């Protein structure tokens, strides 16, 4: 098939042009999503308007938006470290689960400890648990080259089933009537409020800065990027690739594990198998949209939190299923993935006649 265009590779795109391409593709994605909504009999302007209202309309809704931004951002930072290495960690959900599990174990067994000590211990436990959960596939990848996508994904199911087992089995609160649940944490195990919402947002900002500095200004961060760029280069430079893979994945899983602690402590105030509600997956989208940059990740996650919170709200306000947000997220990323083409290639209109002549 002959197209009336000439496609040539281009090396670097000016930052401004790259930004324009990104914005245009997101706008196109929103327009396209709107068309899809029309097909399902929804008024897209009303839906988008209600999403914005649902995310910013009142102090409480704004807090809900931030409550969603915190776990999403921290999980995205974790995914970022792995993706930078082209290690496709799609096990965020499971790592969140295991982090929550470890934090809950600490909280439930030591309810009487002083709050700062207990919270620190819960945090550390969640990082280690999430990190170790991620280390399992990482070790197999590092030593044997085992496919990490399927491995990490399967680890999600195992983690979730295990927490279900605990919730409906050995950890069930004997006093709970009706729906089986794990006992609530003591007050000391709950993250305190700072400036109107739980302290997770402070943690989030610190971690954004930390991951940004780690990836851009430390030797290990640089090595992770090199392993992602080219294994050959890394090997030639004498890097210890298995160790780098394992360190990066421990950090990746540890950050996701910390999300589990925040959600268990500040939101659920106990362990539930549903506490992650998909942040580990949404983080894949946000991280990629942010082009694996920690600071950009923060802003993308804030925007996605608006979408998530708005979607919860339209379910109440318009009786539109909140999964519409997931559809819109998917469409946005499809458009951005497609638009990458225009960053890497120059497409020039040359007309059919010339294209035919050139093909011959």
């Amino acid at each position: 098939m002959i197209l009336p265009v000439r496609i040539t590779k281009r090396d670097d795109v000016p930052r401004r042009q790259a930004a324009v391409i990104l914005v245009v593709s997101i706008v196109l994605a929103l327009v396209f999503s709107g068309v899809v909504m029309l097909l399902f009999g929804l008024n897209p302007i009303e839906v988008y308007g209600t999403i914005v209202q649902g995310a910013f309309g009142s102090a409480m809704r704004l807090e809900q938006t931030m409550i969603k931004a915190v776990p999403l951002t921290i999980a995205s930072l974790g995914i970022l470290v792995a993706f930078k290495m082209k290690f496709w960690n799609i096990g965020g959900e499971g790592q969140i689960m295991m982090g929550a599990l470890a934090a809950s174990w600490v909280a439930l067994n030591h309810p009487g400890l002083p709050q700062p000590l207990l919270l620190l211990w819960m945090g550390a436990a969640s990082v280690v648990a999430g990190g170790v959960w991620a280390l399992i596939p990482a070790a197999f990848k590092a030593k044997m080259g085992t496919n990490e996508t399927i491995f990490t994904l399967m680890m999600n199911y195992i983690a979730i089933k295990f927490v279900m087992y605990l919730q409906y089995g050995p950890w069930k609160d004997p006093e709970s009537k009706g729906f089986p649940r794990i006992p609530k944490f003591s007050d000391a195990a709950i993250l305190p409020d700072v400036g109107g919402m739980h302290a997770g947002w402070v943690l989030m900002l610190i971690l954004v800065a930390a991951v940004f500095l780690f990836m851009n200004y430390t030797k290990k961060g640089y090595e992770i990027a090199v392993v992602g760029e080219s294994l050959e280069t890394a090997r030639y430079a004498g890097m210890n690739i298995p160790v780098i893979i394992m360190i990066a994945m421990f950090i990746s899983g540890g950050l996701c594990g910390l999300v589990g602690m925040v959600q268990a402590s500040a939101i659920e105030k106990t362990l539930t198998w549903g506490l992650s509600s998909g942040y580990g997956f949404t983080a894949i989208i946000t991280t990629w949209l942010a082009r694996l940059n920690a600071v950009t990740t923060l802003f993308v996650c804030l925007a996605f939190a608006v979408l998530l919170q708005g979607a919860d709200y339209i379910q109440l306000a318009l009786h539109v299923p909140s999964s519409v947000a997931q559809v819109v997220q998917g469409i946005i990323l499809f458009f951005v993935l497609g638009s990458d083409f225009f960053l890497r290639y120059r497409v020039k209109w040359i007309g059919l006649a010339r294209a035919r002549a050139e093909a011959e």
Partner: protein
Amino acid sequence: MEAFLAAAIVAAMPLLFATLGELITEKSGSLNLGVEGMMLMGAVTGFIVAFGTGSPGAALLGAFGAGAGGALIFAIITVTLRGNQVVTGLTLTIFGSGFASFVGDPLIGKSVPKVVQAFFKGAPLPGLSDIPFFGPVFFRQDVFVYLGYILVILVSIYLYKTRPGLHMRAIGENTAAADASGVAVDFHKYAHILFGGGLCGLGGAYLALVYVPMWQADVVTGRGWIAVALVIFASWNPTKAFLGSFLFGALSILGFRLQSMGFHISQYLVDMFPYAATIAIVIVSTHKNRKEDLPPADLSVPYFREER
């Protein structure tokens, strides 16, 4: 035992269709990790069409179309626009699950119409179903299962005995060489990605129409990912894909059997079996190095003629 194996065949079907679909996709050089998403799109579309029309044929056609539609998105982004295959596939999975819960929302708890249920009732094959042991296990099944058997045979013949099959394998092994010898690379990639996606859609539809004949948004529960693992386990061979699906079908119902035999294991621990087994398979498959067990050489390598 016969009843157990017969039930394992039923449980294997969604896996088989999805595995064959992904196998075809990968043989033509593309790694589409959106299997789970395409199965969900097929499941919800099949269910809606069955619910709306009462026609099993239309439902299967709709499911095939939905899976192929999801695959078309993947093909446009990865073949024409040369986007990252891994991330595009992951996005397709996220999109597909959102699509299924969004579109299927009004149908939660609704059942498949009686006509369609009746169509997928067991239909023993005359003669074959009387063979001792094999008859009850393999040949007292429903139409869809027989379609699965036929598909295994057809895909094998297509891959190894036909010209288009040869062309598509050539693309998967060495895209540049195939292109140089005049094979229409993009056309073949599109065709096989779409057909593969359609099969994934059918696998999903079987889950929604036969296996769990009442709509629930999380009907696929990781089977798409198991299918991706089964392709590796099967060394890209359709017959082995059948054996792998059968094995996993058996594994997925094993826990239930054990419980009904009086073993006291938590349902949730039993549910981990297939996932843990998938991990085991992925690990074991890492160490294959016989030539015929290796993935297509140009799998997931983007191709752009001007960059040769």
